[in-house]
């Protein structure tokens, strides 16, 4: 335990860009050693450009090169915690308690997950004190943390405080044969300058539901370009896992269960045979599949949203209406189990109910196999 804490301190749980770079370079070198010659030749040609965008250039390798072909995936799991919406302690302590509960849950996993994805909306109104409080609590996690940003973290100061605490909001990394991409899907066009909104007015506009005076969530042109470059050198059989705060498809615009340029992002991802998108924001059991892309929502630790009024993706196994007497019902955390075939089982660790596992067989068979059992909780 002691040594773990020590090593954590050394590497830092919110890894700096440099640390991530070092880690990915190490991964690269190791993978090069594992490559057989034919795969190597196939890889190296396509890889040159990708290596540039990856920023990998080794003086002691004869060419800048990165691995493009699919590597063997070593099965592993990562945990997730999402959408904690912390207020300052004096305003609300319920959500603080819930996040602490999630941290306890994840720390109790044995063996520990390879890392913990934090899915965004750590803060409620982007206040520095809220983000500081969240960072302090997340430091309790034993496993390394991968941070993603949500709109509640962002729109007070356009991410200044968040980036100071956690680093880049858009990045990618490789882990045990999977290529991971973390996006900022809550970018909005400037709707505030012309109307001379204060930062807090801007924040509250984005935080509100059914508020049409804001723009739309999007990944945006520059980020899509970055994404294309990031994926450029990868062959189609590399398994991808993409993290986005909002769902990378169109579900319900009024609540921003919606990323407006999602079709373009899907187009970029379409050539890959195995793509999993894990998103926050929706605070509920939510499952979708578009082509080869499997979409899984994350639970919130703060509150469950009801389902959007226009209906649900076909594959979604519905969550019963949460018990109004228990503020933690319908909330929770969970884990994602990655298998050797590069696909994942998504586990919803509901606090007040039995856990629900949405298996990769269920996703691959379009819902024909291994349908998760319906909830046994009573309906309210």
């Amino acid at each position: 335990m002691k040594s773990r804490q020590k090593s954590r301190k050394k590497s830092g749980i919110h890894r700096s860009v440099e640390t991530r770079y070092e880690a990915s370079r190490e991964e690269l070198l190791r993978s090069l050693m594992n490559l057989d010659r034919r795969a190597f030749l196939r890889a190296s040609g396509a890889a040159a450009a990708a290596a540039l965008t990856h920023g990998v250039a080794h003086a002691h390798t004869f060419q800048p090169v990165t691995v493009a072909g699919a590597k063997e995936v070593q099965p592993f799991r990562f945990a997730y915690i999402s959408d904690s919406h912390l207020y300052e302690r004096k305003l609300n302590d319920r959500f603080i308690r819930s996040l602490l509960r999630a941290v306890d849950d994840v720390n109790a996993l044995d063996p520990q997950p390879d890392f913990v994805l934090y899915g965004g909306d750590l803060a409620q109104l982007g206040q520095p004190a809220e983000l500081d409080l969240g960072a302090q609590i997340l430091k309790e996690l034993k496993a390394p943390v991968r941070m993603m940003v949500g709109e509640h973290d962002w729109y007070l100061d356009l991410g200044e405080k968040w980036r100071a605490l956690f680093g880049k909001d858009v990045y990618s990394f490789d882990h045990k044969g999977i290529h991971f991409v973390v996006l900022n899907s809550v970018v909005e066009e400037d709707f505030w300058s012309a109307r001379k909104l204060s930062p807090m007015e801007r924040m509250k506009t984005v935080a509100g539901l059914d508020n049409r005076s804001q723009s739309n969530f999007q990944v945006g042109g520059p980020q899509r370009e970055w994404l294309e470059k990031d994926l450029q050198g990868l062959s189609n059989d590399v398994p991808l896992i993409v993290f986005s705060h909002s769902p990378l498809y169109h579900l319900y615009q009024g609540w921003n269960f919606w990323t407006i340029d999602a079709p373009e992002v899907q187009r970029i991802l379409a050539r890959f045979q195995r793509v999993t998108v894990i998103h926050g924001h929706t605070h509920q059991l939510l499952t979708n599949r578009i082509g080869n892309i499997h979409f899984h929502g994350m639970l919130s630790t703060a509150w469950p949203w009801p389902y959007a009024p226009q209906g649900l993706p076909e594959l979604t196994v519905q969550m019963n209406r949460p018990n109004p007497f228990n503020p933690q019902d319908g909330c929770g955390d969970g884990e994602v189990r990655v298998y050797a075939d590069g696909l994942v089982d998504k586990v919803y660790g509901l606090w007040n109910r039995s856990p629900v596992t949405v298996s990769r067989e269920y996703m691959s068979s379009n819902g024909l196999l291994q349908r998760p059992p319906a909830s046994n909780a009573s309906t309210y």
Partner: protein
Amino acid sequence: MQPRFPPAARAALALVLAAPALAAQVDLGASQHGAASMKDQLAALAKLALPADGLVAPRGIDARVWTASIVPGQEPTAARVALGRALYFDPRLSKDGTVACATCHDVTRGFTDNRPVSEGIGGKLGRRNAPTTLNAALLTEQFWDGRATTVEHQAGMPILNPIEMGAQTEDEVVQRIAGAPEYRDGFQQAYGRAPNYADLRAAIGAFERTLIFLDAPFDRFLAGDPTALGTAERRGRELFDGKARCASCHPLNGASPLGTDNAYHNIGVAARDKDFEGLARSAQAALQQDDSEHALDQLALATDMSELGRFVVTKNRADIGAFKTEQLRNVGISAPYMHDGSLQTLWDVVDHYNKGGEDNAFLDGGIEALALTDAEVDDLVAFLFALTDVRLAEPNQRAQAKQKEQAAKTRPIKDPALAERRVLGFERRVLGTK
């Protein structure tokens, strides 16, 4: 409820009258393990005017609900009720002949034992507080962790638990009583066959189905008698449904007459000095070896893992330290309170909820500080004492006076700083602040 005497009841009457035959082997006048003597208990029982059978829905329960609650084939006929009554008070069911059902579910003590945890054979102590057998037949699940469903199922388990009644096998129990002529006839009348364990526990369950006590001042108030509740009690009822949020887990109305959601919640009672994570790991290892009903039953009563509550039944992490929401009926006479009997008075109970329970990683989401004032706590307690059946009004008044006196002396759980959120429970736990 009209007393009825169907033909089958004749044998039942004979059985009750056969008590002297029983006395030939067991001293019914003796007081064992601090319980009232069986003789005194039977005398007290007679005054309660119980129905002879459990076939007709008692007052306050919809006939369809009552019928649905009865296990098919185990209808509580008069003969079965009479047999079960005899068994309930018979210490011969236990290994050393000193413990009957009535030892820990004592008629003169609100059908519980008024001890923190119960005492079994050889003075052995269990880990949990004996819940009352009153209205138990109406609960969805039995025991604090719900490891049995019906009273007919539940009744067979303490007899075999090594620290309760200590019998080693079912056969041993049956053999001990099978020789008694009143039981030979009783089983024949009730079930048409010789004594056996399945019928034995079912008969005890049948008797428990006559212990329905739902006629409290509160019910009379709901039925339209405005004088049934005093002003403090009425204010308490407002708090119960409102600020104190009791009704969240203790729904108490026509559709839910017991005041329980029949669910399991961690309210932090056990959390004061327990390492839940460590215990959960031990329990998982133990249950991997053996998760039979018997193993579960022992784990619940004889080890520290008892504090895991519902978790040992479901193995669901969310159920760690969660115990069944106890019914509120007749709560005034069933002290001490909580699954471990750690709270002495209803003032302590309300103090516990008022401060937001005892903080721990598994604390139920609905448990939060309530900021009730002293006067509000008093009103709430007054209302809780109005939930005791009028047939038990006299012991209820005594208990109320006694608890009031005790609460005036000491309120060990009271913590206004937590109740008013000047300090938060998790801050004490996680951040180590004062």
